[in-house]
Each structure stands twice: as C-alpha cells, then as structure tokens.
C-alpha cells in the first residue's frame, strides 16, 4: 500500500455525514463511561471509528471538530486546547487502520499504543503550558504530586501523569473500536471504500 492509498480521502456526502455521527459517538462514550462509573474517559471512540472508516484525514477532522464544537457550545472550553491532541489521534489511528493495523485484535493493541503515545506527546506540553503540568485526573495528579515532591523535573512528572491517564484509556477505546468495527455490516463499510468503481454489466 502506497502513501497515496493511505491518505486517500473521499469528501462525498457520506463522509461528511460520518463526522457528526462520530462526534456524537464520542459524547455517548463519555456519557456511558460516567453513567457506569468507569474510571476512564472513553471519549474518543467516535474519532477512532471515523479514522478507521474514512482514513487519516477524516479521522483528524473528526477529532479536531469534536473538541472545537464541544468547546464552543457546551461550555467545556478546556477541551478546545486538546483539539490538537484529538486531531493527531484521529490522524494516526487512520494511518494505522489503512496500514492494516485494525485487522486483528493484537494489531489493534499496537494501534492503541500508537494512539496513547500520540496523546502523551501532544498533551504533555499542553498540560504544562495551561495547567502547570497536571491533567485533572485524581490518580494521574497523585503521581504528579509524588514525582514533584521527589524533585523530578516538571516535564517528567507531567509525562507520568499523562501516561497514567491516557494509555489505559486509549487501549480500552481501541479494543472497543475494534469490536464495533467487526460488527459493522459490509453494506456500510463499502460506502467508505475509497478505491471503488462502478463495474459495468453490459
């Protein structure tokens, strides 16, 4: 598969309609996670699905649009800052999926680790700039406080904090994404197949 295949994107109506659905799925994931009192965010399932179906560009758009829309309308303006993180998660998950790393369960774990790494690399500097290094998650911040008390550099404490928060979340998120993708019918996934032509019968 060439780079051109990986980044090929259809901007037809079907892809446009996919984006709000994915943004909605992100929201529902978050809502269910909090209704069931799970210790995870689970707010990027939709972004990952969008990335797997529509490719890296659609994935990135899903991610960025997600944070921008929620930030500008639901009052949760903190999420705006993390639009960058979501964008890159969607983008890289899309690349992984097109490269075949969502085809089996073990492979999707590798995608999860990539997504986790992306989240850490992008979010840590943002955390440092805007929050002095914390994430706002109880467990993560406890680790942050402990490493600060042990006089570790700020960026390292912040990195630990971020790892604790994001890696488990991304692993569960991509496992869920994998299971959902497997359940999707062919007639839906074929809509997003970027390389299809109409065959003539006569």
């Amino acid at each position: 598969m060439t780079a051109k295949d990986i980044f090929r994107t259809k901007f037809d109506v079907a892809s446009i309609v996919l984006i709000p659905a994915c943004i909605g799925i992100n929201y529902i994931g978050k809502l269910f996670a909090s209704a069931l009192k799970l210790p995870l965010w689970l707010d990027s399932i939709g972004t990952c699905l969008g990335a797997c179906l529509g490719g890296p560009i659609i994935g990135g758009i899903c991610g960025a649009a997600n944070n921008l829309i929620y930030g500008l309308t639901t009052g949760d303006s903190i999420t705006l800052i993390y639009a960058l993180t979501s964008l890159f998660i969607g983008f890289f998950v899309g690349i992984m999926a097109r490269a075949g790393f969502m085809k089996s369960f073990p492979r999707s774990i590798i995608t999860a680790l990539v997504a986790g790494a992306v989240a850490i690399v992008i979010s840590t500097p943002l955390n440092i700039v805007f929050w002095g290094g914390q994430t706002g998650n109880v467990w993560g911040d406890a680790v942050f406080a402990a490493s600060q008390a042990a006089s570790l550099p700020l960026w390292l404490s912040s990195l630990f904090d971020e790892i604790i928060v994001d890696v488990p979340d991304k692993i569960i998120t991509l496992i869920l994404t994998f299971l959902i993708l497997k359940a999707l019918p062919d007639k839906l996934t074929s809509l997003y197949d970027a390389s299809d032509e109409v065959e003539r019968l006569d």
Partner: protein
Amino acid sequence: MKSISLYKDNGTWLCRVHPFTKLMYIAAVILIPLFLHTLWAYAVAIALDVAILISGKSLKRARALIIFSFTIIATIFLIKGLFDGDNITPLFSLGSIVFYKEGLLKALRTGCVIINMLLSFSILVLTTKPEDIADEMERHGFSPRLSYVISSVFSIIPQMMGTMDTITDAQRSRGMETEGKLSVRMKAFIPLITPVVTSSLINTRERAIALEVRGFGAKGKRSYLRTWKKHKGDKAITILLIIATFLAFIWKIITWLI
C-alpha cells in the same frame, strides 16, 4: 427535545451581538494578558468578563460552568505551592507543611488563565445559538459542509441519548445487570454502546441519501433564508478589539527586544 447547547435567549443585548464579535472578544481577552504578562491584566480581563456577563444577565449560569475548575485550581495551588522546582521563599506554613511564594504565584497565574478563559467562553456559549455560528460561518465563505457538521451534531446527540435509554431497557429485559461490581459494569458497556454506535453509523447512510436528494452536493450558488444584520456596534467593537490586541502584541515585541 433536550439540547446539549447551553444557549438561552434571555432577551438581553448580549444575545443580539454577532457571534463573530464574541469570538473576537474571546481572542482579545485571552491574548492581551498573555502579551502583557502581568497579573493586573488578568484581573482587568476577568473583571471585564464578569461585567459583561452581569449586564447580559448570565453570570449565574456562567458560575455553574466554572465551578468545576475550582478543585483543579486548588490542587494546582497545593502542588505548586509545596513542590515546585523554583520554590525558594517560604510564604506561610500549616504545621510542618511549608508553602512557597514562587510556586503560589505560578499557581495564581495558571488559575487566572483558566478562569479568564472559562468566563470569556461562557459569554459566547450561553448567549449564542450554535446554529447561528454555523450559519454565519457559511454565509461568510466557509464550506456549507462545515456548517452542516456543526449544526447536525446538535440534533444527533439528543437522538442518541434517547436511544440510549431504550437500549438500556432492552438489554435489562434480556437479563443484563447494569449495576454492581466494576466487572459487571465493564461487561455491560459493550451491549449498551454497540447498538447505539452501530445504528447511528448505519443511519448515516440514509441521512446521506436524504441530503443527496435535497441537492446538498449541488454545485452552483446557494441562497439563504435569513441574513443577520450586523449592528453598527459590532463593527466598532471588533475594530477596537483588533487594535488593542495589536498594541499589546507590539508591547510584547518591544519588551522582548529590550
């Protein structure tokens, strides 16, 4: 249908202000203190936010939006005040725990950034209809696809939340427990979320058809049902904000050079 948007038309002038003016205000009120880099600039910005919210009769609703950040800000004060790497000057102590001036000042600055941001955004969020932002963007040359994405998120989420309740009922009817130990709740997650996700993805197919047959993909000039007549104040304020931000930027450059 319950919307996820916090917009409410309370009849005040703030709801009549053009969304772009509010966006410009947010940009200015966040950037200017950043350029000036002094605490008093944050104090002025926050005071301005609060004044606008009061005159727009929305302060009470804004409070609900910022209150959640207080615990985070408190932990920032705690961790910075106690452990920050630059801590030298003890300010006060509680028993054997010593708080340092440097860390607390950093925490104060971070706290101000957060509060200022939350307040300025709440001005937009509480008094602007999301569909209006989308429509205005489209009318000013942004792609109609972009404005479609924005508007449709607001209809899709309440729909999904409605199905969520039905799904919970349907799975409980088949003997699935949704309460109890963490493992029980974890196991419930997949039967609950898969149907809503799958059906909303499947619905996108019909939604796409519905848009196609109403010419959404049509080329050529589009028309609009309404036009938003900008108040002359909108223009004046926007220019003022741009000038102020620009001056602050110049100030930043000058102080940086000398």
